[in-house]
């Protein structure tokens, strides 16, 4: 039995080490400069970074929700020291031999310290264990190629296997053009995974953040049991520019914004960033008597 215990202990040690390293790396990756200012893209107010850190990157003047990175998002939601990232180093090769794609990927990785545009994590929110998938719009506009599709699918399969609720934050320009048809296939792959998860009784909360368009809107992001959106988030299948070209006229004010989708019946509730954690906690608690009770 001795060797068995030893290998178990080693594995636990390794896991603990990994976890600690991941937390440390994550906090480093998004160390926020406290000095300096940013201009709100909505009302052009000059906000100091110190202010924005206080407001979780919501403009103090107009309430505009600035896009935030995946790790910052997770840190706003998860209980301290419960974060464990899964498949952090997963990437996809340049399967279509698309000219210049590798060097672009390298540049994106250097810029963001992400391996691709999705982060999968297990963690606790208000004491409740769940799987979180967060897309990061800083990396190739959060576009879905094979790596994002695979991470989302693995996250969903993990949630199914371990009977955990699933929360996905979407932010995406759509399919990753450089991975062509394989990007398109990720729509089928992720939707199929969600369907199996759903049929097994799993709770999936989908949160649209700014902007979510194209292949992500037309796959897993639109398949939540509960669908939430951040205020003002642009959500659509076709981009506004394409639609404008198609219909040849100006688009109405507020078109494809979260509020528009709520009005048309595609979003349960619009939840400001400051209330997201509380709302998710409420939803997780409302579903805890189900199959996925923990």
């Amino acid at each position, binding site marked *: 039995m001795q060797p068995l215990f030893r290998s178990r202990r080693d594995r636990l040690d390794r896991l603990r080490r990994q976890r600690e390293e991941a937390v440390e790396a994550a906090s480093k990756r998004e160390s926020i400069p406290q000095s300096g200012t940013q201009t709100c893209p909505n009302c052009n107010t000059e906000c100091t970074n110190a202010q924005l850190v206080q407001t979780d990157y919501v403009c103090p003047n107009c309430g505009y929700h600035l896009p935030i990175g995946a790790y910052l998002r997770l840190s706003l939601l998860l209980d301290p020291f419960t974060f464990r990232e899964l498949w952090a180093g997963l990437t996809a*090769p340049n399967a279509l031999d698309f000219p210049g794609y590798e060097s672009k990927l390298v540049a994106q990785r250097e810029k963001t310290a992400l391996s691709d545009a999705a982060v999968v994590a297990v963690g606790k929110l208000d004491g409740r264990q769940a799987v979180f998938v967060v897309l990061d719009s800083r990396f190739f506009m959060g576009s879905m190629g*094979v790596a994002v599709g695979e991470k989302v699918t693995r996250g969903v399969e993990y949630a199914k296997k371990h009977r955990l609720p699933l929360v996905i934050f979407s932010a995406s320009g759509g399919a990753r053009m450089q991975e062509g048809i394989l990007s*398109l*296939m990720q729509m089928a792959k992720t939707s199929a995974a969600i369907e199996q998860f*759903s049929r097994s009784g799993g709770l999936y909360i989908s949160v649209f953040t700014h902007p979510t368009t194209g292949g992500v809107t037309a*796959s897993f992001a639109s398949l939540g049991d509960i669908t939430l959106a951040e205020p003002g988030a642009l959500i659509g*299948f076709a981009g506004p520019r394409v639609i404008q070209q198609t219909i040849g006229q100006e688009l109405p004010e507020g078109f494809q914004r979260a509020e528009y989708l709520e009005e048309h019946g*595609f979003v349960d509730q619009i939840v400001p960033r400051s209330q997201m954690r509380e709302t998710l906690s409420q939803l997780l608690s409302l579903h805890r008597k189900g199959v996925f009770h923990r």
Partner: protein
Amino acid sequence: MNNLTAAQRVKLARTPGRPGTLDFVNALFTDIFVCKGDRLGREDPSIFGAIARFHGKPVTVLGHRKGRTFEENMKCNFGMPSPEGYRKAQRLMKQAEKFGRPIITFVDTPGAYPGLEAEAGGQGEAIASSLALMSALTVPVISVVIGEGGSGGALALAVGNRVLMLENAVYSVLSPEGFASILWKDASRADEAAGIMKLTARDLYQLGVVDQVIPEPEGGAHTDAKAVFEAVNQALTRHLNQLNKEKDLAAHRYQKFRAMGAVREEVEP
């Protein structure tokens, strides 16, 4: 036909005289009963739906419909479905599953309609729920890309146990025009885009996205439609026979799409 460029195939796939869904349906099926409407308030003519017989056995047939004339094209929106079309398709797929009918789909669309009403009606949700539904169907599903396979609007009818493709059909994440316009802000470089997008049947076969390439006559499908119908007939028969032996068709389909796209992982420490 081996020496055509991708851009030339894009043009062939869009040739006005090329056989469309209705031509295939009329040539390959008997006892056709057309089914219309999403039961939610609209009929979208850009998606064709019917119950029919294939070699005597009932099947459900779905397909994108383009028009021959300008008027026809206006009516079916140049083969660009609205959410209502996808919801009709979902209704008919569920019905096929209920009655144990195999589903055969013909894919031929520039893409889902990118318009204001389509967005207001939930184009994204309609495609997403089609993908989810189709992925889990317990009956055999065979999709044939016969012309243009444009983006999510094509995929929403193409989550099949088998995906077959005519030699000069194309299937891509976006039209070459859209692709060029996104990547280079210049839609006029569409031919160049087609060249690097890997959108031909042969490319897609090599990538494992397509299971069989169905050859076309010299000059394209429209030069000898009968030969093409016969080739599709034979392919459908063969694959349907194979799929009838498959025990768990939903699991088979899940695994097929689960395997799309290889990844690299850092070795665990």
